């Protein structure tokens, strides 16, 4: 074969097989060098692209180091949901989470059900032997055997080495103060979901959604600060438990609010329950009487009637009303408990707690004015607070003159006691109605929420009347020296079977302290107090609720940081004189 000549290559010179390959692969008239270079360039480009992608992925991994891996580690924790701590106003813990272990099983991995259940019941004698057996034999993939086991039990079960049985950490809610703050806090169920009180409110505020999403696993949630003061709460509860025992009352309740902010500093209703054992809460006698119950507040309501009359401008402190004989209304006759049988001035009506006088006062202003005023004071609608449990007031469907007569002295209209407290706070603090709250609130925030319901002058006159009632009225037993207490008593006959009972009463005492510069309002309520030798057979408020209120104030006031002041002039000099000077 001849060597091919470079300058005149002829395809014909090449062997036929090569020619065939060339024509099959790249055609006959192609510059193979150029083609090769283009191919190399293409290869380089593809590799360059590949490496660029790898480099970029590396950069991405470097900048975002936490991917799915870390989420998977936390997942087992998410079984029971974390809740934020609840603190009192001084930062004391009222509710917190602690970590416990729970025992679970995967039945399909259990080899010998009988052996496994025998071993487990040996370690945990407190559970019924049939129960783990039934659960282990079930077809489900996952069953709880026991929630919240002790560390010792966990260790023992771990040593048994039963296949298909494991532990999951869970959060358990604990209330270190037991029954002390029960009604306010509420409680949670076994899955750490709030079922009552502030706990339920927390869930309603978005915590439940977090739990559903499995995100609330962290215990670093911001704690919730309540307005309640644990020390005051304890002191008030201690006094109320003692009072309930002393007067053999069905129940005793007390609430202390800051009149300037509407914060509820203490709320006690005994009998109460231990939130660590929520089953007790099902007992209907243990309800929170201050928000969940409605009551006819009795003479306490006279404060509202008198304030309405004074605020209308038609009645002054010097006005007089005829209380010389019972007020006849159809077949009803309204009597006075401390009957004076003469014409009484407004301060006398208040201090003798005259039913006739207040009824006449309300009648002089008319039904519509009375309704309008009570609506303005928030007594006719349900009071909404953070607590999910609330009760609707029982308002008469047809409001006739007789209703105005009885409601004027606190019968015929049932309201939640906290509702009455909010209204009387407004009469004390200069006329601003502030919705009560269980959370911490500043004075500026309260001012933004407040509505002016009565004139500041009316408020001053009301404080004078409250103080006067302690100086020489029905509430003299609550005159705690140094704190210038003002107060109004209330005794209402309970309705038993549709009729007013003559023997069963609900007594209450509303106190403001100090009366000249109001800071706190205290309400004490005793349900069916019995007469004792000390009370000379009486069951009216002045003999039970008032001394209890006095004892509670003497104990609570130093805790609240109120400075005691002695040798203050009587109310007509101190409060009324400053009101007149304006």
């Amino acid at each position, binding site marked *: 074969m001849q060597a091919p000549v470079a300058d005149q290559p002829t395809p014909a010179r090449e062997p036929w097989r090569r020619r065939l390959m060339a024509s099959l692969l790249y055609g006959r008239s192609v510059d193979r060098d150029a083609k090769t270079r283009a191919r190399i360039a293409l290869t380089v480009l593809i590799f360059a692209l590949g490496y660029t992608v790898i480099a970029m992925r590396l950069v991405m991994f470097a900048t975002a180091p936490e991917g799915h891996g870390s989420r998977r580690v936390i997942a087992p924790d998410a079984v029971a949901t974390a809740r934020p701590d609840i603190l009192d106003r001084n930062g004391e*813990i*009222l509710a917190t*989470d*602690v*970590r416990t272990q729970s025992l679970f099983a995967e039945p399909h991995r259990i080899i010998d059900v009988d052996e496994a259940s025998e071993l487990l019941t040996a370690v945990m004698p407190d559970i019924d032997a049939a129960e783990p057996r039934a659960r282990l034999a079930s077809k489900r993939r996952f069953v709880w055997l026991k929630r919240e086991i002790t560390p010792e039990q966990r260790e023992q079960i771990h040593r048994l080495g039963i296949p298909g049985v494991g532990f999951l950490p869970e959060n358990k809610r604990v209330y270190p103060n037991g029954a002390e703050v029960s009604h306010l806090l509420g409680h949670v169920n076994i899955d750490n979901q709030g079922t009552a009180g502030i706990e339920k409110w927390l869930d309603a505020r978005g915590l439940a959604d977090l739990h559903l999403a499995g995100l609330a696993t962290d*215990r670093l949630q911001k704690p919730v600060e309540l307005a309640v003061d*644990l020390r005051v709460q*304890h002191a008030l509860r201690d006094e109320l438990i003692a009072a309930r025992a002393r007067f053999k009352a069905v129940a005793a309740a007390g609430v202390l609010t800051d009149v300037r902010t509407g914060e509820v500093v203490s709320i006690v209703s005994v009998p109460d329950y231990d939130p660590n054992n929520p089953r007790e809460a099902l007992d209907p006698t243990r309800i929170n009487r201050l928000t969940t119950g409605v009551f006819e507040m009795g003479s306490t309501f006279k404060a509202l009637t008198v304030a309405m009359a004074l605020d209308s401008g038609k009645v002054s402190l010097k006005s007089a009303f005829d209380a010389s004989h019972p007020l006849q209304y159809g077949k009803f006759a309204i009597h006075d408990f401390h009957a004076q049988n003469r014409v009484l001035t407004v301060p006398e009506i208040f201090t003798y707690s005259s039913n006739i006088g207040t009824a006449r006062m309300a009648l002089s202003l008319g039904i519509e004015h009375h309704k309008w005023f009570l609506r303005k004071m928030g007594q006719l609608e349900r009071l909404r607070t953070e607590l999910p449990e609330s009760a609707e007031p029982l308002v008469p469907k047809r409001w006739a003159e007789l209703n105005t007569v009885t409601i004027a002295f606190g019968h015929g209209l049932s309201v939640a006691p906290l509702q009455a407290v909010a209204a009387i706070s407004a009469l004390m603090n200069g006329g601003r109605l502030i919705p009560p709250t269980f959370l911490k609130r500043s004075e500026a925030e309260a001012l933004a929420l407040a509505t002016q319901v009565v004139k500041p002058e009316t408020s001053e006159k009301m404080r004078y009347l409250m103080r006067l009632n302690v100086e020489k009225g029905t509430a003299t037993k609550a005159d*705690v*020296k140094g704190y210038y207490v003002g107060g109004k008593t209330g005794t209402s006959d309970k309705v038993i079977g549709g009729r007013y009972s003559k023997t069963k009463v609900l007594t209450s005492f509303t106190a403001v302290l100090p009366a000249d510069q109001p800071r706190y309002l205290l309400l004490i309520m005793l349900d069916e107090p019995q007469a004792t030798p000390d009370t000379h057979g009486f069951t009216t408020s002045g003999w039970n609720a008032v001394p209890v209120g006095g004892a509670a104030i003497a104990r609570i006031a130093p805790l609240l940081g109120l400075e005691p002041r002695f040798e203050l002039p009587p109310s007509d000099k101190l409060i009324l004189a400053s009101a007149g000077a304006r």
Partner: protein
Amino acid sequence: MMRVLNICVIAALVLAAADVYTIKFQSTRQAQRVAKLRLEIRREREAVAALRAEWAKLDNPARIQDLARRHLQLLPADARQIDPLDNLPERPSDLVAVDEADPIGSAISKPDALDRSVIGSVPADAR
């Protein structure tokens, strides 16, 4: 020329690979440490929470009141025991002589002998 360049590039590649390997190794170790520390922090936090719960339980006012009633002779504070600083009188001159025993100091040093009526100013009718 080309060969020298190639050798240089290969050397650089080997060096870079070695460096990347050490960095990777270190980062793995750091990540492990981070995970371990995180776990420790979580355990510590849980322990702190458990201790705080325990503390709150021991610090409960009802428990303290019970203990105080049983072991102390103190009474609840009375309003008359609180006085503003303005009412504080001037310091009396030499109530106790220099070489004499201090009555309050000696009373504090023997707590068993303490009579609650001499500490503070418990009013007579509160006793």
